[in-house]
């Protein structure tokens, strides 16, 4: 019967093979044949598959139209001669966009990169990613990419452009003019060398401009240590973490790495009942703040005073006297005690770009013996290299006509420079302006020449994120358009014959090969290219000694600001960040981890202030002349703190980004030389309008239901079941009127550790990318029709003014007694014999009955033709232009595109399960625990999601299921979910 059961599926699933088939190619041969067969078959029911297949062909056509060959890019897992159509190849690479750094592995199918995963070989990120890294693959297929060089706004060719630029450069050089390369932070040593070469030939200056600046921190370190640098942080080694507005899980320095570290020290699944304690002081609500064990509201104006007071308390504890008593706006005595008791295992960080505050933080860390323990000064971070004063100087120089040529590489100051008008007017006075953008932007059209850069997936590159931590990037696709990598352009302009790949190789051979233990350079190069990363273990050699004078001086100077004035904070959210990726529909539709809003920025206002000013949700206001923005009442926001996300209000970008939200960069000011992300001189003007912000969650209370279960570490130590007591009661009553079905082979299950989930949303984007989840646009989200297969529910608990925040990722629970399956009239959703709740899209007629009957509401309905798969033409609903031929190249051919009128939902990445089963079969072995990893679990930087076979008693998932913290959502309904949750534990131990 078992055979008959899947009779009709046998033709599609590839794991059935005649016994006698012993051909060496085995299943791969079979796949190939299947491919041929599928090509031949032209039945209407496979229309969608063929469409996807058509794109594959299209992509090949596009790829072959490009002249530049890919040479010897070495795939990670499979040797080139083994590339088989229908099988993915993986290439190691590096994602760095000036803010986020992540070593990655790029999945390439039929010549198209379709997915980015974290690179497990990196000891920093260990395979973790964040939302922007996950979404970066879609940037490759951005509709608004520059497709060829332009001169004076007209399409041109590389030859013409090069000739013109070189002759102008020579002219400038001849008259002794100044050439400036303005770039974002560059962590690539080879690129730096190229720019150096360039500026050697054409004398000038390389100026780094960071949108999110850490210039004050570098400055503070210069005063404390005599060197402007950023040290390496070790959140995993800290038992107490105190953060002053440092959003280290979202946007501060290297959040992926920090999330990894942070979660490592907060996991309770290893058996050890120990976790770090995290105290967070901030004004606006950040992702990091919502994850803290204790979150203290602090008006930004009082931050400096508070830090000074904390410093003072610690000095007292350390027996260092002499400073005068400092009053603190919030109680820091307890914090000081806690910190001091964990001396050498404590870490204090601050996110502010105020040098004095950073100095005091240094002093505090010194007192706590953090240096050498939780902060490593011998390994230095290379990001955020900008010196804000230099950028200001540049703008002044340009306006003064002192600059003759400017090369804009990886920057968009006409959009994001705080005084962008000044920049634009200055730029106009520069004789030669060359922009090297990837996608349409505000600055490039102001340049004389646009020399479009490759997308990073088309480029060769290297990176050194920290001292001794190198990684490589290699192209995963031939360039789609007539673009040229910026570094190559620099090389061309200095008349070099080298291509940049060879340049990197040379650089590595001469600078890095020595640090390795490889015998030959080729061996070194090939293995590092394969791994993607090279961790040499090298450290900074100079000895840094701490000088506390500056810190003490700063403490003396610290004055409390006026907490009665309104503070406007601008911040980078986890989705569009600084606006560089604003044109990425996946990121635009990504709900903010705190507010659950997407497709807009808005002014977050505390409930108290809102009621005081008579403001209702979505009333429009003008704050600090940003323009008309709606307000969003944000529980937990400090009384007088307003906050607005950066990255919106793009004026010249593609369809998804342009006109979405307002540009908040204008609110940044240069105080004491550093960019300040908070200002106090703002007034809030009520405009009387109303503008609805799309949110994926509109009800924020759990209504007292045991949905997200939580406890405190103290209680947990006493009784591991605490917070989850109700489960015993529920389990006692779990009676059924019919016996459970048996799952003999696999029984797939997932467990989610609520203690680890930070709400970063990487899983949401990863899932969208893996499963071709459509983007529906703001209007549809407003109508509550977003399509995400995994969502992160966020609930507030307790006081609305300072609530506890809990989160819960929810996907299809794959219930063994699924209420949805029962009610489908056409048997479109059934249970597999591996415990999967499966959807047959081509059988679905769209009654939405399953969706109604799903207690978890995880099913999604294609209300419109979101992806052009409908049989009728002209009825697409594609506000984000996701159905252009270019955008479609990102589609995963292993996952069907769903037509209008069809229900879809999480499949536990069944395509990955099948692939791994097939692989195991080909290798004639059992599937191992951990072989199958769904996209969400793979993306997660905190390893919150575990997937595996419940029948395998030794598997990680089985261990999680045995944990006392494990529970199932709405278990009392006897739906028998295959997703477990581990209780969230807060460390309230003082």
């Amino acid at each position: 019967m078992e055979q008959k059961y899947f009779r009709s599926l046998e033709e599609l699933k590839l794991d059935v093979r005649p016994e006698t088939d012993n051909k060496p190619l085995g299943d791969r041969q079979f796949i190939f044949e299947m491919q041929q067969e599928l090509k031949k078959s032209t039945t209407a029911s496979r229309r969608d598959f063929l469409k996807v297949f058509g794109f594959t062909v299209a992509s090949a056509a596009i790829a072959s139209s490009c002249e530049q060959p890919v040479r010897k890019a070495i795939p990670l897992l499979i040797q080139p001669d083994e590339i088989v159509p229908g099988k993915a190849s993986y290439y190691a690479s590096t994602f760095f966009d000036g803010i986020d750094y992540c070593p990655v592995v790029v999945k390439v199918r039929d010549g198209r990169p379709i997915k980015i995963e974290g690179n497990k070989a990196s000891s920093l990120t260990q395979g973790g990613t964040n939302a922007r890294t996950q979404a970066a693959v879609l940037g490759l297929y951005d509709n608004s990419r520059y497709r060829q060089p332009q001169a004076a706004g007209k399409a041109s060719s590389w030859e013409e452009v090069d000739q013109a630029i070189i002759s102008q450069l020579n002219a400038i050089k001849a008259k002794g003019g100044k050439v400036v390369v303005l770039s974002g932070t560059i962590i690539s040593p080879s690129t730096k060398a190229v720019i150096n070469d360039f500026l050697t030939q054409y004398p000038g200056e390389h100026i780094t401009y960071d949108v999110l600046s850490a210039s004050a921190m570098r400055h503070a370190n210069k005063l404390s240590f005599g060197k402007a640098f950023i040290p390496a942080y070790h959140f995993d080694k800290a038992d107490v973490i105190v953060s002053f507005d440092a959003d280290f899980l979202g946007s501060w320095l290297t959040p992926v790495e920090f999330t990894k570290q942070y979660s490592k020290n907060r996991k309770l699944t290893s058996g050890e009942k120990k976790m770090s304690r995290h105290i967070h002081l901030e004004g606006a609500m950040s992702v990091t703040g919502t994850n803290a064990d204790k979150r203290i509201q602090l008006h930004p104006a009082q931050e400096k005073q508070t830090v000074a007071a904390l410093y003072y308390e610690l000095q007292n504890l350390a027996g260092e006297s002499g400073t005068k008593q400092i009053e603190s706006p919030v109680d820091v005595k307890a914090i000081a005690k806690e910190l001091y008791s964990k001396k050498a295992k404590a870490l204090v960080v601050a996110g502010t770009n105020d040098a004095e505050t950073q100095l005091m933080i240094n002093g505090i860390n010194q007192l706590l013996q953090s240096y050498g323990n939780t902060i490593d000064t011998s390994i230095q971070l290379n990001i955020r290299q900008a010196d804000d004063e230099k950028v200001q100087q540049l703008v002044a120089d340009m306006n003064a006509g002192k600059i003759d040529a400017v090369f804009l590489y990886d920057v968009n100051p006409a959009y994001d420079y705080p005084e962008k008008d000044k920049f634009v007017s200055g730029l106009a006075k520069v004789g030669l302006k060359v922009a090297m953008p990837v996608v349409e932007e505000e600055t490039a059209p102001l340049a004389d020449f646009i020399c479009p850069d490759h997308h990073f997936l088309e480029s060769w590159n290297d990176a050194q994120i920290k001292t001794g931590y190198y990684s490589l990037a290699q192209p995963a696709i031939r360039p789609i358009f007539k673009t040229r990598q910026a570094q190559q352009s620099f090389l061309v302009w200095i008349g070099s014959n080298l291509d940049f790949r060879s340049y990197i190789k040379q650089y590595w051979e001469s600078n890095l090969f020595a640090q390795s233990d490889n015998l030959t350079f080729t061996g070194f190069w090939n293995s590092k290219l394969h791994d993607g990363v090279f961790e040499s273990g090298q450290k900074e050699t100079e000895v840094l000694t701490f000088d506390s004078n500056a810190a003490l001086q700063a403490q003396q100077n610290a004055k409390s600001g006026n907490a009665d004035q309104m503070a406007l904070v601008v911040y980078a959210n986890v989705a569009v960040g600084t606006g560089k990726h604003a044109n990425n529909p996946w990121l635009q539709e990504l709900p903010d981890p705190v507010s659950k809003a997407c497709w807009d920025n808005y002014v977050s206002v505390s409930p108290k202030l809102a009621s005081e000013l008579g403001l209702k949700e979505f009333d429009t206001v003008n704050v600090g002349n940003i323009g008309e923005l709606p307000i969003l009442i944000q529980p937990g926001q400090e009384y007088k703190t307003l906050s607005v996300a950066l990255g919106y209000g793009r004026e010249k970008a593609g369809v998804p980004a342009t006109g979405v939200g307002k540009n908040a960069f204008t609110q940044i000011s240069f105080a004491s030389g550093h960019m300040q992300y908070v200002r106090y001189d703002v007034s809030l003007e009520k405009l009387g309008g109303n503008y609805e912000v799309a949110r994926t969650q509109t009800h924020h209370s759990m209504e007292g239901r045991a949905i997200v279960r939580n406890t405190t570490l103290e209680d947990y130590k006493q009784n591991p079941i605490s917070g989850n007591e109700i489960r015993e009661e529920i389990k006692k009553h779990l009676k059924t009127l019919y016996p459970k079905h048996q799952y003999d082979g696999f029984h797939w299950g997932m467990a989610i550790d609520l203690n680890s989930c930070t709400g970063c949303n990487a899983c949401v984007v990863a899932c969208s990318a893996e499963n071709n989840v459509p983007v529906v646009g703001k209007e549809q989200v407003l109508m509550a029709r977003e399509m995400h297969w995994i969502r992160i529910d966020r609930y507030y608990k307790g006081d609305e003014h300072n609530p506890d925040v809990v989160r819960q990722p929810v996907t299809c629970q794959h219930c063994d007694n699924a209420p949805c399956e029962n009610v489908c009239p056409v048997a479109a959703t059934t249970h597999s014999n591996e415990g999967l709740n499966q959807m047959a899209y081509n059988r679905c007629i769209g009654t939405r009955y399953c969706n109604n009957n799903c207690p978890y509401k995880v099913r999604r309905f294609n209300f419109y033709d979101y992806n052009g798969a409908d049989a009728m033409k002209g009825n697409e609903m594609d506000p984000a232009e996701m159905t252009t031929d270019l955008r479609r190249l990102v589609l995963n051919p292993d996952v069907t595109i769903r037509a209008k009128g069809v229900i879809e939902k999480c499949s536990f990445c069944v395509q990955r399960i099948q692939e791994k089963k097939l692989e195991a079969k080909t290798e004639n072995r059992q599937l191992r625990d951990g072989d199958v990893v769904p996209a969400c679990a793979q993306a997660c930087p905190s390893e919150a999601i575990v997937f595996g076979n419940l029948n395998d008693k030794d598997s990680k998932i089985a261990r999680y299921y045995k944990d006392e913290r494990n529970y199932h959502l709405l278990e009392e309904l006897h739906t028998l979910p295959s997703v477990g949750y581990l209780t969230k534990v807060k460390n309230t131990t003082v």
Partner: protein
Amino acid sequence: MYVSPIREPLIRGEKNYGQVTKDILAPMAGKPSKYWYLGITLAGIAALFGAWATYQTIYYGIGTWGLNKTVGWGWGITNFVWWVGIGHAGTFISAILLLFRQKWRTSINRSAEAMTLIAIACAGFFPLIHMGRLLLGFFIFPYPNTRALWVNFNSPLLWDVFAISTYFAVSLIFWYVGLIPDLGTVRDKAKTKIRKAIYSFLSFGWTGSARHWSRHETVSLILAGLAAPLVLSVHTIVSFDFATSVIPGWHTTIFPPYFVSGAVFSGFAMVLTLLIVARKALNLEEYITVTHIESMNKVIILTGSIVGIAYITEFFMAWYSGVEYEQYAFMNRAFGPYAWAYWIMMTCNVVTPQLFWFKKIRTSLVATFIISIFVNIGMWFERFVIVVTSLHRDFLPSSWTMYSPSLVEVGLYVGTIGLFFTLFLLFIRVFPVIAIAEVKSVLKSSGDHKKTAHHE
């Protein structure tokens, strides 16, 4: 048959059999009145609105409606249940009242059954149009196919397919079998050749033979016996659509009988709405008398009270269950964002029908008409309350949403109302609106000047 003298006569005026024939056939003869034209124009316009909405839905998708990820059913299914409910009166009158020997049914059963059929047609439209992929809707039938895949017999929607189509088919033959002798009458009274030919075809060659009559009665009776449980089963199965689920507010065991009585309740209200107008417009006041209206009003009190008790039972049980989801669902109904709908429902369904306890109101045509409209509205809101308030806030508050209909959904509803009246207006021109033979058979015992002599 002996009839107690204290009973009210059912047919007014000095009538003989010939007069009965003449009176009842009168609306079919001659040119329609201008009111008829006005009515069918208005109904036609409404139906066209529905056609536009249908096009929008099929071409652009369900996205043209106001539904969302949480509320998967809205006006569409509300209308479906409402129409099915209305479609219960006809068969209830013909079948159950026949079994209970309520003679007053004879004057109203024909039009009520016609109304039933039209209402089921309107109802059946909604499950079809609410499908995301209407063109593949045939998947719902268990037909042999190359994939050897059948359908899911566990699904209440599938049961609906069987129930609604069986109900329609059986109601149709029940209605038509009853019509055959009357079509014979129309045939024999026809003035033109074409008319004669058509009705001769439609009347199946009816002669009025005693043997035919005898078997015809048997057939009618057995059909009534079959239709009675069928009526119960149809709304029971419709109620299963909700009650089998796990959603608080949907899953409750009282639904089957409560839906059935609600259906009869709304069906009778619609019959009253129609007949109060029709008896006037068609000069049938002597056949459809105040006694008929009063009897129907009594059924309204009965079923309305059952529905009321069910509402209260549900509410009490939600509290009594101690299940927080249940409790919340009902508090949300009564005091949540859709409380207005709940209180309209309560007022129209529970309060206003109780006015019928007063004989003055029960026998007043104006009052009856107004209350019948109230009940129609109230029963629509009952379904709206059940469908929407249960869904929009269920288990996980993170998914809670609000729902409001789009113009397209309004169009579909108005469209079916237009279709309903169009077909009903055509029906009164084409078929006798009262069962002629049945009225004749009770004329002697229940006529105004009853002949007291009884046979046997």
